[in-house]
Each structure stands twice: as C-alpha cells, then as structure tokens.
C-alpha cells in the first residue's frame, strides 16, 4: 500500500526566518520523488513537516488525501530514515527492526520472523542477533531501511541516507534503494544535495533553493529543460554567458554577450530586451578548426584532462572567459593539445537563455 503526499503552499518559519516558502507539489502514490538542493535550503524541514515533527506555519499537508494537521508522528503512515540513521544501539539488530511491531503489540515470535524476512529483503540475512555497533556503515543503512519497512509505511521519508557512505557503496545502495522501492511499491520521498543521486534514482525531482521549490520535473527535463538559472547551474556543468536578449524568432532568440552574439533557445519567462544568462552544457560544445555556423567562439585551449570515458577541455576566449567542452573518448574526435587555437561551436537548440540567480556550487555537488 502506498499513499500520495500533497503539499499545499506549505511554509515553515523559525522565528522571523522562513525556512520553507510556499512549497506546493503533489507526490503520487508509489512515486520515487527527490528534493534536491544545496545545504540549508530547507529539505530536512520539509521532511520533518511530512513526518509530523514540526507543523507548517501555513499550508496543508495531506497524506493519502487526508489532512495531517494535528497528527503526531506516531499516528502518521510515514516512516523516516534519519540522516544519522538513529538506530537503537542497545537493542540487537532484530529488535531494532521489530521495534515498530513491538509497539503495535505483535507477539515476539512473529516479530522475530518478520525481522528475519526483512533482513533477507535488504540482503543481510545473518545479522539478526548482532549488535548495531558490529555493523559496517552500509549494513547499518540496510537495517535502518528494514526497520522503516517493518511498520509497512505508506510513505518512506529518507534524509540523505547515503551521504555517510563511500562512493562505491553509495552507488551500490542507490540501485538497491531503487529496487526496494520498486519491489515494495511504497512512495519514497528522498532528500539529497547530490544531483547524481537525485537524477539517477527518481521518477521526479523537486529542485529547491532558499526554501523555495524552483522546479518539479522528471530528471531528464530537470537537466535538459531547466526552468531557471538556479536549476541549470545547480544541476550539471555549464558555460555561462551574461548578456541581453535581442531579437526572437520562434523558440530561438539572438543573445548579445561579451563573447559575441549567439542564437539560443528562449527559456520560460524570458522576453526581448531582458538581461539574462545563456547556459551551454560542455557536452554540447563541438570543437572545430575554423569558424562555422551562427554560434562560434574562437578560443585557445589551456588544459586538456583525460577523464576516461570523456575528455575535458578547458579553453579561454578573446575576452578571457574560461570555457569548458567535453569530448567523448570514442576515438572519432581529435584530441586537441594546450595552446591549440580552435572554435567552440554549438547548436542553438542545445543552449538556453534563462533568468534568475545561479547556484553557488557546493564543493561536493
């Protein structure tokens, strides 16, 4: 069983500080939904409101269509996985998992059986009698998931559950979480500041900044059709040009920048004469020996980094702006060398003009 979660213009205030600002989104039953945003943007606060630890200062939260106002966390059909997991260190693994059943008065034998079943589900079959302290990070993670699943929640809430794990394990657990979600059909609301995680796992992603929901879309649209400068710059790499919109034709527009005038797609709510930014993904940049087409920037290559599956090329244009291109390591593209003079060219359909601030990038984002 799973339930949808509706946030109706939800706000959260701490004193005069508004941590969550008018967030409105309908999360479908059985959906894997991620809130993605930089540290301090209000993600945990949203999750704590859904689970009932804080009440919204405005707006309505509905779970399965039912208004949750006044419902304590122990009355809601949600289970929260805490950022630090919060396993009970004094109980063995199986009692941790069975705690929710113990609370519901299930007898000991059934509890034990159910705990073992869930340990199988999370691929940790022999851990029932271990102490929590004996487990590795990834194993604790699985126990936390099993403990939450044991109460058969209609909505699972996960607060950056993978952030403490190392890269390899993180990638493995991503797939695992996704598989568990598919198997159980429970609605997952997942919080992360890691864009890779959000894009790879989610049905839909809500990108947040400073308490506001910036865009809700499927991962592909978040990446390919960002709604504003914040989303574009928070998710993925960009070459960014500041300038002004000049003429528009269809969905394209002419955009004047210090590096030249380009043709690019018009983003939402961008009109003629506006000051805006042009966002161009490095993988959409082509390297050409001579000028070609409307969008062409003469550059000098400054650095070439071999990344394995792709090659990252840093270059500088006449105005001194640093530009980034990525070439696939498919053997077909000639790899330039530092000092080469080339042209960066791109298709106007692959670049987008957007308004709004850009994200100050996290170190690890």
């Amino acid at each position, binding site marked *: 069983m799973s339930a949808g979660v509706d946030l109706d213009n939800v706000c959260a205030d701490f004193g005069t500080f508004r941590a969550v600002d008018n967030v409105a989104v309908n999360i479908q039953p059985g959906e894997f939904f991620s809130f993605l945003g930089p540290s301090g943007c209000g993600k945990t606060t949203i999750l704590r409101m859904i*689970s*009932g*630890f804080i009440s919204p200062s405005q707006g309505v939260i509905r779970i399965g269509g039912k208004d949750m106002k006044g419902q*304590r*966390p*122990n009355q809601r059909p*949600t*289970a*929260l996985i*805490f*950022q*630090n997991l*919060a*396993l*009970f260190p*004094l*109980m063995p693994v199986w009692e941790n998992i069975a*705690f*929710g059943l*113990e*609370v*519901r008065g299930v007898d000991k034998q059934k509890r034990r059986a159910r705990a073992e079943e869930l340990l199988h589900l999370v691929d940790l079959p022999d851990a029932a009698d271990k102490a929590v302290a004996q487990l590795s990070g990834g194993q604790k993670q699985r126990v936390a998931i099993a*403990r*939450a699943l044991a*109460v058969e929640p209609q909505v699972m809430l996960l607060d950056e559950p993978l952030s403490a794990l190392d890269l390899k394990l993180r990638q493995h657990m991503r797939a695992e979480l996704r598989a568990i979600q598919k198997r159980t059909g429970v609605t997952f609301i997942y919080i992360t500041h890691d864009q890779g995680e959000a894009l790879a796992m989610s049905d839909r992603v809500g990108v947040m900044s400073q308490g506001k929901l910036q865009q809700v879309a499927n991962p592909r649209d978040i990446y390919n059709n960002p709604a504003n400068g914040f989303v574009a710059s928070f998710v993925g790499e960009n070459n960014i040009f500041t300038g002004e919109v000049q003429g528009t034709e269809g969905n394209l527009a002419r955009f004047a920048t210090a590096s030249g005038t380009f043709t690019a797609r018009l983003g939402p709510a961008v009109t003629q004469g506006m000051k805006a930014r042009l966002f161009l993904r490095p993988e959409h940049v082509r390297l050409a020996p001579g000028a070609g087409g409307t969008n062409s920037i003469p550059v000098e290559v400054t650095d070439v980094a071999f990344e394995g599956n792709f090659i990252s090329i840093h270059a500088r244009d006449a105005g001194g702006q640093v530009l980034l291109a990525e070439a696939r390591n498919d053997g077909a593209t000639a790899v330039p060398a530092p000092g080469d003079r080339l042209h960066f060219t791109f298709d106007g359909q692959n670049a987008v003009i957007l308004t709004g601030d850009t994200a100050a990038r996290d170190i690890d984002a």
Partner: protein
Amino acid sequence: MKDLLNRYGLLLTTVFAVLTGFWILVLVVLPNIYLFEHSFKPYLPVAELGGPKDVYSLDNYLTFFRSPIHISVFFWTVIYSAVVTFICFLIAYPLAYYLSKVSARALLPMIFLLLFIPLWVSEVLRSFAWFIILALKGPLNASLLGLGIIEDPVRWITGFRGVIIGLVYTYVLFMLFPLYNAIQSLDTNQIEAAEDLGAPWWRTHWRVILPHAKPGIASGSVMVFMLSAGSILVPTLLASTNSRWFTEIIQQWMFESQDWNTGSAYAFLLLILCTVFVSAVMRVFRVKLSDIAK
C-alpha cells in the same frame, strides 16, 4: 601531571601535590585506619589498656548481630534509604528529561542556578528549615488549611515521614545531575525515531531513554542511597520519637557511651552492609561497575 608542571611550574605543583597528599593521607586515610583498627579492640578503662584483655576480636561487630533492636534499626534505615532513592528518582527523572530534551537551551543556565542556590545554604539550616515548614502549626499546614485542601493540620514529622522528606530534599540533586548527563548524551533522533515508528511516549521512555540512562540512574542511586543511609543531620533534626536512623546508634555509641570502638565497628558495618546491598541491587538490574564509572 605534565600539564600542571607546564602551567604552574615546579614549585607550585609540588606544593599542590604535597597539600593534596597531606589532606588525603592525614585527614582521610589515617583516621579511617585508626578507627578500623580500634573497631576490633574492646572498650576498656584506661588502666587496662595494653593489658591482657586488650586483644583484637570481632566482639564489637558481634554486638550488632546480638542486638535485635539494632538489626531492626539497620533494616529500616536501608529500607527507607531505598525509598528515598526511589522518590529521588521519581522526581529527578522527569526533571532531567525536561532539562536535557525539552526546555529551551537559553533557559538552562537560569534553571541550574535556581537548583544550585539552595546548596549554598548549610545542610543544618536547610534541615532546620524543613523542621519549621513541617511543624504542626508550621507554614505548610497553614497554607494547605488556607487553600482548603486539608481540614485538620497534618502531623508531618511522624514515623519516618519527616526524615524521608528531608533526605529527598537534601539529596535529590545528586540524582538529578547524573540523570541529566545520561539523558543529555542520548541522540534526540533516537527519541524521534521511536515516536516515528509508532511508539507512545511511555514506550519510548521504557525502551529507549531509560535503558540509555541506566548508568546515570545507577550512579545517582548509589550516591543518594549511600548518602541517605550515612546521613546524621537530617535524621537527628527531622526524626520523630518512633523513628531511629542507624547513624544515630553509631553516634550514641561514640558520644553517649563514649565507646568509640563499638561505634567504629558499627560505622564499618554500615559501610560494608550497604555496599553489599548496593552490589546485590546492581546485579539484579544488570549494571556493571564500569558503566557507572563512565
């Protein structure tokens, strides 16, 4: 030690060390050894000291076991000290929980100050204050009568009631602070996790908070119990005619009978028997000594 040397230099450090050593040795260790030795000696007129009768024996200790009255006083002292300990726990646990997990951080220094201020007043004065408060025509009865809660004045200082009230008041903070420390160190997320999994508040306390606080409960209880059983001031001031505390018997031996030897034996018996009792209780509740030391 190295830290001290660096901070205060050789001279001051030596002075500190010598003074502390002097204090422990001369004021704590030696008197106890002296009393311990004498607890095995008979009480003799000065003339016979060093004579043929002045030999070590267990007689002083056996005096206790031969006296049903003393045994019964000891028994009730232990029982009521346990009652005091339990009442202290009942009062201190909710308060410690409130202070460490519920109240606003900004209020804490204020609350702790209010809790500490009574400690600045001497124990004699505080016990005497209770003697006045609890008196038949004292302010407590007056206010209860005034509020219409009771119709006739209550005789508070009867049986062990006055002693219990006084001891709880005197020692409750010794329960509060270890409990506060223990609960304080519990990750609040664990309390929330329990609630999130559906636990009502009492089960969260029973399964998560109390087990975590167990070492704190144990060290608080040991302190309150030992201090209560060994208290002399409060029982002297607040006891009624029909309640005697074991320490009062020790005092009688020492000051009324002038028999310090039997008095010492009784004092060591109190220490030994209480230690045995505490160890037994700790075993029942599966608390290890190392837990308390933490």
